[in-house]
């Protein structure tokens, strides 16, 4: 039996499917978030060195993970869009970028909120902080490039190429920043040498990461539905959609 992999690659077929998927992923996101927040605030023990302030890592670490995962997923969609010349893949890449940028910003802000009581500074030029900041620049460059090109097909392909160039560069940037950091300042702050985490803390972080992941799916699908309607506004299926919506109301 052959599976038709491309059945949902047309916006017309994907639009209703995305609409059906959104509530389910939203439900999953809510469940994971409630469970994760319960574990992180009620179950996880207080850290004997850091006190209660450490609990911000339950937001910070999953946000940092997601910021990186989303960039890779975005580049994957972009590559698929370039290789197969598929409209929907490029739209998915475009829909993921703002969420990725927001998670990067969230990781930076929560990191500095954690850094002030722990390190006594809002910002240190730590390798991870610096590469997270550069990741934010990469996201902003992608969004700015897509926003400033009027022709959507050209914007898609130019953005896709930029995302691919970025994904090749991310490891190079990461290691260069890491070496720069070790050369310039001694390892006064070392996040890698933190004592081993309790299992409940890890559980809380994983649940929060899953919640963020599901949330990303929900907002990306919502955004891609908007992008589809906007781009395909001249097509028959969007017109039929607006007519049937008008009849209902």
């Amino acid at each position, binding site marked *: 039996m052959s599976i038709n992999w491309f059945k949902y690659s047309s916006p017309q077929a994907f639009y209703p499917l995305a609409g059906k998927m959104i509530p389910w992923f939203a439900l999953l996101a809510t469940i994971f978030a409630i469970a994760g927040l319960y574990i992180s605030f009620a179950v996880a023990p207080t850290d004997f060195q850091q006190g209660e302030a450490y609990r911000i890592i339950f937001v910070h670490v999953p946000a940092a993970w997601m910021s990186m995962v989303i960039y890779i997923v975005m580049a994957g969609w972009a590559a698929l869009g370039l290789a197969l010349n598929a409209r929907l893949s490029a739209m998915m890449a475009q829909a993921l970028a703002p969420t990725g940028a927001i998670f990067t910003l969230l990781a930076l802000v929560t990191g500095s909120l954690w850094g002030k009581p722990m390190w006594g500074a809002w910002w240190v030029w730590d390798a991870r902080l610096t590469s997270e900041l*550069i990741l934010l620049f*990469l996201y902003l*460059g992608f969004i*700015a490039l897509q926003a400033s090109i009027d022709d959507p097909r050209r914007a898609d392909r130019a953005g896709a190429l930029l995302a691919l*160039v970025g994904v090749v*560069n991310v490891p190079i940037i990461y290691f260069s920043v890491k070496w720069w950091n070790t050369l310039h300042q001694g390892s006064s702050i070392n996040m890698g040498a933190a004592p081993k985490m309790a299992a409940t803390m890890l559980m809380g972080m994983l649940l929060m990461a899953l919640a963020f992941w599901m949330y990303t799916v929900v907002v990306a699908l919502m955004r891609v539905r908007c992008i589809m309607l906007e781009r395909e506004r001249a097509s028959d299926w969007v017109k039929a959609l607006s007519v049937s919506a008008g009849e209902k109301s």
Partner: protein
Amino acid sequence: MNGAWMTVLRRDLLLAFRRRSDVATTLFFFLIVSSLFPLGIGPEPAVLSSIAPGVLWVAALLAGMLSLTRLFAADFADGSLEQMLLAPQPLTLLVTAKVLAHWLVCGLPVVLLAPLIGLQYALPNDALFVLIISLLLGTPALSLIGAIGAALTLGVRGSGLLVALLVLPLYIPVLIFGAGAVAASQHGMSAQAHLSLLAACSLLSLVLAPLATAAALRISVE
């Protein structure tokens, strides 16, 4: 194939020579930016020589970036870029010729001027030597990576600022290794590791960047 490559190189160099003021602008920008720092920070030789590697490298990076928008813009406007896309020779090859011309016109003069400014920053002789070597090894990577940004933003409104946003994050490794090489030699350490990494950056971008630039040009022009 060689003939087309040489023709593009010679043509771009000739065009640059006919518009010498463009070259002068890049150099003048490099000169003025690096002269502003002592005015803002103060004339202490110890302070100046400690910030010199970073300041000179950032100034070189910005000067190279400013001239990027000119790399394809004129050819795009008069239609010769389309001829290059249609030419039987591979576009990747023609792109390397254009990038080499850009480096010879905008990169090399900065490399040659840098030791003069390094003297103003009270850099010792061996650090000056490392500065020249590091710029010589690193600036080709800047031109090559910058060409991708220039090709992507071809004919886009506000392309000058957009190029900065796209290209500067990708320049960071070159900046780190370049300024690191000079700083290492200032501290009496060997700069060899930094210089090797810098050469690696340039070689890697020589292999990959022309391919990406050619793809970007096809996206922008079609």
